[in-house]
């Protein structure tokens, strides 16, 4: 720090700037994080009988919005009736709370570890705009696939895998298989 900087410190940065300027700590080692994840997953099964999940929570949130906007439509589609037909509240479900909790927990860890940052994480060879489009496209495909498979990497691969559901293991290999299969062809996105 030079003498000039010491003489003129300038105005204190705003709250959001300070929030995002915390020094970034290194990631936890994968094996240790995996062990912690396993403990959380076990605790969930042990206490509640349910594993973890995410897509189900997002599913119910979007169905909630659909029910607000077009309730008669929801009452006519079998897939939607089960979730929000009549006066059923789709948000009153464990997986919605887990999804909301995950956002809070992700924020808390990001805050503590100095990784809160308004930015676009992307590969070096593509533009930010391309990344946004690809993220939306990837999310769309994933969302569709997750309901097709009745669960995503959290609800099926991780949770179902841990309790040895045969379908979950098959599904898990399908996810990895197709991702690996496509990776080379779209390497420009990431490498």
């Amino acid at each position: 720090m030079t003498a000039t900087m010491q003489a003129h410190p300038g105005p204190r940065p705003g709250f959001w700037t300070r929030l995002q300027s915390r020094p970034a700590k290194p990631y936890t080692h994968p094996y240790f994080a995996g062990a912690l994840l396993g403990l959380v997953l076990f605790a969930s099964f042990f206490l509640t009988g349910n594993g973890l999940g995410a897509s189900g929570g997002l599913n119910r949130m979007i169905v909630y919005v659909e029910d607000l906007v077009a309730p008669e439509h929801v009452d006519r589609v079998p897939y939607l009736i089960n979730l929000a037909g009549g006066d059923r509240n789709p948000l009153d479900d464990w997986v919605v709370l887990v999804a909301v909790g995950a956002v809070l927990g992700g924020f808390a860890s990001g805050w503590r570890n100095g990784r809160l940052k308004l930015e676009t994480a992307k590969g070096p060879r593509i533009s930010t705009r391309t990344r946004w489009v690809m993220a939306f496209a990837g999310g769309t495909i994933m969302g569709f696939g997750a309901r097709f498979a009745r669960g995503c990497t959290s609800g099926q691969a991780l949770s179902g895998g841990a309790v040895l559901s045969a379908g979950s293991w098959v599904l898990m290999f399908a996810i990895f298989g197709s991702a690996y299969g496509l990776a080379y062809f779209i390497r420009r996105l990431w490498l």
Partner: protein
Amino acid sequence: MGIFPLALDGLIGHSGTLLVYLLIGFAFGYVLEMAGFGYAPKLAGQFYLTDMTVLKVMFGGIIVAMVLVFAATGLGLLDYNLIWVNPTYLWPGIVGGLIMGVGFIVGGLCPGTSLVALATFKIDGLFYVLGVFFGIFLFGETVDNFSIFWNSSYLGRLTLMDVFHLDAGVVVLLVVLMALGMFAGAELLEKVFGERNLRIEPKARFAGAAVMIALALAVLAIGQPSTEDRWAAVSQAKTAALTERQVQIQPGEVLHLMHEHDLTLVLLDVRSESDYNLFHLADARRITPEALPELLPEFRLEPATTVFLVMSNDETAATTIWKTMVAESVMNAYIVEGGINGWLDAFGAGDDRITPTAAGGDDELRYAFASALGESYPASFPDPQKFELTYDERVKLELKRGPAGKGCG
């Protein structure tokens, strides 16, 4: 049988239960972010062999949770019957998985990690989450067009133990060994493609691997409870309930339950096919002891307002089935007191097609029928206004334990 999982709603109320889930989610999101899963390029690195964090965290999580689940079950603390094991829809799962893989590599995130990315202000995370909402919306709007396929190849609560005909302990050990092998392979790939310096990796990981193998061996040694073990865990209380006639429901109460709208009555008739065809209660379902194991997962998923009534001609066969159901964690199971014989004693008079015969052996039908009308006799569904029977009220609905909803859906 295991006191875990808990009947949370009963212990801490509905809001308390939702809070528990919120806290679990909090821990979940926190750990994911700690591992770096809010950062899409890191996740994508998995598929270019440069950064195998996804594999290590996911499989690390799987084997730790798996070993703990099966250890807790083997020790009688946790009831594996009451935890959510995703039912297998084979082909929809495969197709869905293939689609998800595309979404994963194109977007660099998955639903859970996208929430974490969003939470740490990643704009790509926001776009991804919006995409997931859109994709789910598209699914809801189009699924009716392929709902036959979507509901096909249903194999029920199928486990790897069922598929490979191996004990849980063996499967646990094999999965642990496979995971450790994959970790070793992953480290090698990271060294080759990601230029990772293996020498600065924590040596503790070898100790960790040894611990996992030891735990898996312990699980194998402890074993998993059989139906007999499960019955033995509850036999004192349940045998007392049988001798004190607390779980045998009198015909008058059965009749009342048949007309009760607040609950779902499942009538299980365990007699021979010929007896069943002669006469049975309205909507009674005939099951055999051989078929019972396959039906148990279906029974366990019933809500807390479902009552099972098991019946035979007297009570012997019904009691045997009842014991198995109770041992295997089916809630609200009861026996029809006096069985069909007792039922016809109460409701069969006045129908001259039904005639009592000489008392036969135990659990033999004491009635003869002019023709085999099944449930078309009036006595199959007696009119409650015609019969004023007194009875001791014995059905008590139990608190629901285990998966609240239908899994992640």
